[in-house]
């Protein structure tokens, strides 16, 4: 354990001559590694009464360190020891000691060499692309001709390059450091302040052994990075882990090693709230989407009506239907699902194969009879999330999740619990090429409070002009949904549907055609809150 003593810089100054380049001070922040470099330096700069230029900021284990040359700055820094609070309200210690000349200040290139370096760099700079190509700089003929040895792995050389960039081309967009035998990126850490606009960086074919080197430059907002040909690439078991590790340093990265990167990683998706309304979750051709939409519309219109028997025509002669309620049926919270529990075919709990067979409703009559027994419902089509997950020429398989309300008429007001459901349908086209349901699996559970509140939040349209009152329930619902899908107002939706004989698909196609032709007037588009 090193003990940091604050030796007074003033006392030390007595021992040195005036104006001596040797008066360097090392500033140490214990556990500085936990702070973001920019935040730390800005905090220190703003608290320090004397402005200073930090040199060679770097981390050694958990310490953050940098150098200053100015004795008065060093003294002022000593004064702010334990004066700055971090985000957790802890005081930040700042220790000041004398020091030898920092590494990068050693062997500073002489002015003539810097001049030549500047010329070389301007030759290697493409103004139109704002790209600087420093690959294999060691062997640049100009530099060699002038006996200038630029080994970028050495701090003094890298500093010289950065200084030149800072003075002449701070607007740099792309930097190529390929084949320079770089084994660490400490020297590059200042690049974030010097050329913050860099979007493309090529570090390929160097000697970087660990991806942690990228920590030193992670303030850069890189969009394209090259790392191949470094030992660090072999430390990853496979491409996806490599990609996601690199992405952690540069979240905006869209190209790595010359390859376009796929859209955001799965971990992003896992955290996302993915409950989307019906219209956004389809995968598949537009015609199938419309087909499924129309199917769901019609199916649930009938299901929600008094007359579920009409569903007979939707099912195949030998269709199958089964219902499950998730979780243990002895759970007391499920007792209010009793209407469904008696048909519950959850195979996790039900082991008897005869019972399993009985609870599977086979033939359309059996199915519709069971459906008629279930409580009357009102489905909220706007809550639907639909996945079309398998289809062939003769088969469509899709799942719907959403909410519905059980309708119990009490004194002419409808009350009832809100349930959440998931239903998978398999439709098949028979010999007469009309589609019917061959398999139907339903899961019913209680909805969450949030779901209950947001369900049915879009009110059924109240008549605003006389003709609307003559619309049937089915037509009213069609208008409502058409309006949401197209973005035009209810009145215009109704007009469009009426003009197309209440054929939803046709109306939608007509609307789409008019829209592309720009024939829909502005006032038709109404904001739906």
């Amino acid at each position, binding site marked *: 354990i090193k003990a940091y003593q604050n030796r007074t810089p003033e006392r030390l100054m007595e021992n040195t001559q005036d104006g001596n380049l040797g008066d360097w001070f090392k500033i140490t922040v214990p556990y500085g590694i936990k702070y973001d470099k920019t935040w730390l330096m800005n905090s220190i700069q703003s608290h320090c009464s004397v402005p200073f230029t930090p040199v060679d900021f770097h981390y050694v284990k958990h310490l953050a360190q940098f150098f200053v040359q100015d004795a008065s700055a060093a003294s002022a820094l000593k004064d702010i020891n334990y004066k700055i609070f971090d985000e957790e309200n802890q005081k930040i210690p700042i220790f000041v000691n004398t020091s030898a000349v920092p590494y990068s200040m050693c062997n500073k290139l002489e002015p003539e060499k810097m001049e030549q370096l500047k010329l070389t760099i301007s030759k290697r700079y493409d103004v139109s692309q704002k790209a600087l190509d420093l690959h294999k700089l060691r062997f640049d003929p100009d530099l060699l001709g002038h006996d200038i040895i630029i080994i970028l792995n050495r701090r003094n050389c890298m500093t010289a390059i950065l200084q030149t960039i800072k003075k002449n081309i701070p607007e740099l967009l792309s930097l190529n450091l390929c084949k320079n035998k770089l084994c660490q990126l400490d020297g590059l850490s200042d690049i974030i302040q010097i050329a913050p606009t860099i979007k493309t960086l090529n570090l390929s074919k160097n000697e970087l052994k660990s991806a942690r080197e990228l920590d030193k430059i992670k303030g850069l907002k890189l969009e394209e990075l090259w790392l191949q040909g470094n030992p660090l690439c072999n430390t990853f078991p496979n491409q*996806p882990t490599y990609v996601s590790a690199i992405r952690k340093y540069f979240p905006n990265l869209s190209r790595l090693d010359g390859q376009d990167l796929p859209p955001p990683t799965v971990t992003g998706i896992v955290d996302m709230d993915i409950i989307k309304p019906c219209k956004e979750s389809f995968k598949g051709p537009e015609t199938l989407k419309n087909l499924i939409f129309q199917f769901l519309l019609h199916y649930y219109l009938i299901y929600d009506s008094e007359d579920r028997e009409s569903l007979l025509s939707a099912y195949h002669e030998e269709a199958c239907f089964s219902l499950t*309620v*998730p979780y243990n049926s002895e759970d007391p919270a499920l007792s209010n699902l009793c209407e469904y529990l008696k048909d519950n075919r959850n195979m996790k709990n039900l082991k008897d194969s005869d019972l*399993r067979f009985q609870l*599977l409703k086979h033939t359309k009559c059996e199915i519709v009879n069971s459906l008629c027994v279930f409580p009357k419902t009102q489905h909220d089509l706007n809550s639907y999330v639909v996945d079309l997950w398998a289809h062939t020429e003769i088969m469509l398989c899709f799942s719907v999740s959403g909410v519905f309300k059980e309708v119990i008429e009490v004194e002419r007001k409808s009350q009832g619990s809100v349930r959440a459901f998931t239903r998978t349908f398999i439709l*098949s086209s028979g010999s007469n090429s009309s589609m019917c349901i061959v398999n139907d*699996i339903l*899961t019913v559970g*209680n909805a*969450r409070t949030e779901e209950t509140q947001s369900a049915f939040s879009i009110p059924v349209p109240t008549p605003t002009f006389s003709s609307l009152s003559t619309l049937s329930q089915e037509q009213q619902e069609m208008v409502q949904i058409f309006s949401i899908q197209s973005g035009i107002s209810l009145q215009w939706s109704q007009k469009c549907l009426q003009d197309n004989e209440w054929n939803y698909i046709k109306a939608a196609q007509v609307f789409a055609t008019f829209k592309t032709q720009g024939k829909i007037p502005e006032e038709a588009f109404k904001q739906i809150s």
Partner: protein
Amino acid sequence: EILPGENGRRKNSVCLAGFTIFLNIWSSYSRGNRTREEVVTPPLPQQSVSGSPMAMPVDFKTYVDQACRAAEEFVNIYYETMDKRRRALTRLYLDKATLIWNGNVVTGLDALTNFFEVLPSSEFQVNMLDCQPVHEQATQAQTTVLVVTSGTVKFDGNRQHFFNQNFLLTAQTTPHNTVWKIASDCFRFQDWATT
């Protein structure tokens, strides 16, 4: 060292008997292990020989039983493989299988392999299972089972999600057994249920 003479012969046969027993135990153990990466059920009586004019139509209950058996076996293997042996998961899928994961489409074994590598480590708990044999009109007589599951999952030890998952399993019959593979898979978080 086998000693000559009667004593030696007895020792020999005891050794041999012991070894045979060992072999039987080992082979049934390894056979059990081998099938843990494949979903296998015994063949249906008339399914093993296709096109036989004397084949009796299979009773519907038999189809249902077969579907249930395949579904249960499948669900056990699938989620265990997903949690503990993720690299072997793609063996349960057909070459051209499609997965829709929270709306994201992943098609083909290569894409599936990449996907399952990037997917964080999982801890599944299945609370619900149901299945139906899919009507042959939809599948052109390719035996298919629809399986639905739901339960909870944690990815990388983060918060728990409720999920729903649907599978279409297709049968590949051989004379000795039926191997089931996933043709389509649809997975969604479903955080609607109350606990």
